[in-house]
């Protein structure tokens, strides 16, 4: 391969990679997630970065950083705790890839400097190259198998990302061309003659006959002009020539325990491959695939090899430390970037059954993180006149965000160590600022009468079937509230009513009045009442009702109805 071309391509790839990394890192300093970091400027963040770096390197925190580097980044302690089979997959790919990168790709700058006798065709290097390659291939197979398994068995699998496909295709291609190249070089007479000329001083087939015989039988070179069987005498001569000129640099081809078997398949094609210059273009394909991988690194899954360690180190550097607002700003934006989309958080999510039931993937952390990023970038709810689809997606995202119970499991299992707890809290605050709130807020933002009027004008196909009988059986069944005699016991024992001395306290009707609306057939009016959402669910009313009416249960049913019914009319009116 031409040196000029190689170096030009390498330099170009490095430059593209560096520019891409800068672009992606710039989001850590541009994005503002959470109301508490809206005023943080770029200068603040850079200063926080420098302070953090200085503290990480020159104070006692250096110890934490070192420990995080070893345990969390290299040994993937967090992933081991969360999911052992994926830890093994990661280990195979990571060790194999790093082995290939350092020992093979960077041989000139790493291996040669450390081991003076390095030759790619000697052991242990020949064997190790095959071992590392095989590790990556097996790891990739595990990865694809696990991905397929999760997609089949998980209702809301992590989002498909083109960057994952690019990663698998590129890495697979580099490995495949690498093994094919090595296999082809094993069988290629052309490569044999080139080497012979260089180290033996001759490329004459007749003169090299003994060496050819030896290499055909011991190294698998596929000459098509050798007579079989080969005479033992000729072999002996060949061995002598081999020992004189070749042995110092060549271990037995069988050490290439992947490429050698592949070369047996290629052997019958050796002449065709040579005629087509296969060793040359396989080399070009292999090297240029690596360069493409390098140039596109910031935009494929390879990027996590950059962002994830930084995230782990940042989180490992300050355990439980209260950060400055600039530090929080960087850490949150970094979280969006460092998420690998592994979905381990989703598998441990406390509200996963609800996500399945409501068919809302935004309840799950990996999807919620994407929605948080879209909100921050102004893509979740575009300004101006968003389409119905965009509005619906935005409200689904809000339902997901406010459905979180803050159990903190996603944070504790995240292999990249993201502080998701903090991200969800700031994300919810941002949603609320964008007018996307929890039901208790958006229902109470409008008086009950206004909701009832909206519902009147709505074309809900009520006549076909009444879904309420299933989802809200008490409020749909007159017998569950018709016994109410309006004695006011429920209101008298209600702590919410008792403490609502101020008219602005959010209590428009007393519980007994809500029951009366139901008796009058005004359920639409009842479900928009703010009392329904100010109920503390303490069950004093239900416990004390002399008529045995399940007052609190009915209040909770009215909430679910409001979420469904008012939710459908809300979007239509709110933004138009």
């Amino acid at each position, binding site marked *: 391969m031409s040196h000029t071309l190689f170096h030009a391509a390498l330099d170009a790839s490095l430059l593209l990679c560096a520019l891409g990394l800068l672009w992606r890192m710039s989001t850590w300093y541009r994005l503002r997630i959470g109301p508490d970091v809206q005023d943080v400027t770029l200068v603040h963040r850079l200063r926080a970065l420098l302070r953090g770096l200085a503290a990480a390197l020159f104070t006692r925190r250096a110890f934490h950083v070192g420990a995080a580097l070893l345990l969390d980044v290299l040994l993937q302690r967090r992933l081991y705790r969360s999911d052992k089979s994926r830890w093994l997959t990661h280990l195979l790919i990571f060790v194999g890839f790093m082995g290939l990168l350092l020992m093979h790709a960077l041989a000139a700058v790493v291996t040669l400097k450390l081991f003076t006798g390095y030759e790619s065709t000697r052991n242990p290097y020949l064997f190790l190259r095959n071992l590392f390659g095989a590790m990556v291939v097996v790891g990739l197979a595990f990865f694809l198998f696990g991905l397929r398994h999760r997609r089949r068995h998980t209702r809301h699998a992590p989002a498909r990302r083109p960057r994952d496909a690019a990663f698998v295709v590129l890495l697979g291609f580099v490995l495949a061309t690498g093994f094919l190249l090595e296999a082809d070089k094993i069988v290629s007479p052309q490569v044999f003659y080139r080497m012979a000329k260089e180290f033996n001083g001759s490329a004459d087939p007749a003169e090299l006959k003994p060496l050819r015989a030896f290499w055909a039988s011991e190294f698998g070179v596929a000459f098509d002009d050798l007579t079989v069987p080969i005479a033992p005498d000729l072999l002996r001569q060949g061995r002598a020539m081999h020992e004189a000129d070749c042995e110092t640099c060549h271990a037995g081809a069988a050490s290439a325990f992947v490429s050698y078997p592949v070369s047996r398949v290629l052997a019958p094609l050796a002449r065709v491959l040579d005629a087509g210059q296969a060793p040359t273009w396989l080399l070009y394909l292999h090297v240029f695939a690596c360069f493409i991988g390098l140039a596109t690194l910031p935009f494929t899954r390879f990027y996590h090899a950059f962002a994830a360690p930084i995230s782990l180190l940042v989180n490992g550097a300050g355990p439980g430390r209260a950060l400055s607002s600039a530090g929080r700003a960087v850490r949150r934006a970094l979280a969006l970037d460092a998420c690998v989309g592994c979905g381990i958080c989703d598998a441990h*999510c406390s*509200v996963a059954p609800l996500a399945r039931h409501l068919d809302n993937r935004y309840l799950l952390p990996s999807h919620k993180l994407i929605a948080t990023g879209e909100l921050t970038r102004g893509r979740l709810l575009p300004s101006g006149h968003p389409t119905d689809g965009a509005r619906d997606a935005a409200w689904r995202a809000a339902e997901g965000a406010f459905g979180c119970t803050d159990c903190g499991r996603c944070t504790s299992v995240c292999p990249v160590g993201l502080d998701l707890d903090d991200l969800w809290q700031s994300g919810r605050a941002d949603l609320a600022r964008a007018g996307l709130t929890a039901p208790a807020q958006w229902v109470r933002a409008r008086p009950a009468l206004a909701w009832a009027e909206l519902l009147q004008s709505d074309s809900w196909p009520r006549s076909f079937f009444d879904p309420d009988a299933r989802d809200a059986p008490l409020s749909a069944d007159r017998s569950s509230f018709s016994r109410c005699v309006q004695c006011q016991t429920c209101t008298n024992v209600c702590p919410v009513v008792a403490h609502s001395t101020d008219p602005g306290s959010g209590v428009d009707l007393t519980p007994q009045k809500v029951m009366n609306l139901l008796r009058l057939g005004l359920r639409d009016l009842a479900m928009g009442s703010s009392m329904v959402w100010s109920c503390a669910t303490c069950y004093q009313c239900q416990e004390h009702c002399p008529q045995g009416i399940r007052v609190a249960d009915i209040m909770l049913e009215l*909430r679910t109805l409001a979420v469904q019914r008012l939710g459908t009319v809300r979007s239509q009116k709110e933004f138009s």
Partner: protein
Amino acid sequence: MKYALFLGCKIPSRLPAYAASTRAVFQHLGVTLLDLDFNCCGYPARSVSRDGFVLAAARNLALAGQAGLNVLTPCACCFGTLRHAIALLDEDAALRARITQALAAEGLAWSGAIEVEHVLPVLARVIGVDALAAGVRAPRTGLRVAAQYGCHTLRPSNMARFDNPLAPTIFEDLISLTGATPIDWPRRLDCCGDPLHDANAPLSETMTRAKIADALASGAEVMCTACPHCHLRFDGVQSDTADASIRTLLYTQLLGLALGLPAKSLGL
């Protein structure tokens, strides 16, 4: 004796001392607590979807059923919600059919045989007040304690089956055996205000402060809780105020101290 320990969403991340003290006390009493892969009890989903809430609860019960264990929870809200779901599944055949179908998709089944218990009744009735009293090594003599019952352990009483909902005594009995003095306070059965924390913050705070003021006025030194929501609510409101405040203590911590367990093992 063995239970599946249901910690719920709040305890592991916000109140780990409750998990630690519960484990320490029950270990001391020879009760094995096992951790299963539980999800949210379903309480927060009650405002969103009835089926969703029952499904979340039923999934937990099905997991416990699979392990052949009854459920023990230190959280009043999880306790109330899980028992509520059991009652709904018992009374509504159509709901039961839908939930059974949803669980089957995961290879789980609703058996109906699993019992859900709260920490307090297990201590008072299964271990027994007398047995506990016999084990007290460091009585908290003279400590004046207000029992914070929590709503969902008591009500609705036909589903919770915890104690007399209008005049419960179980918490006071458990406090007495530690040597401390349970005080009588008018607001002892009131809501702590936590469920309204997000929906109506000012009202929620008014309710919490009213309880704290009442306990202090009634002579309490300590507010004893048996629910992470109540506990965190009192601590949360008192963390940013200059008003008179009351010390909070989890019942498992109070009992652990009386039994002579090291304070560190109780998260103190």
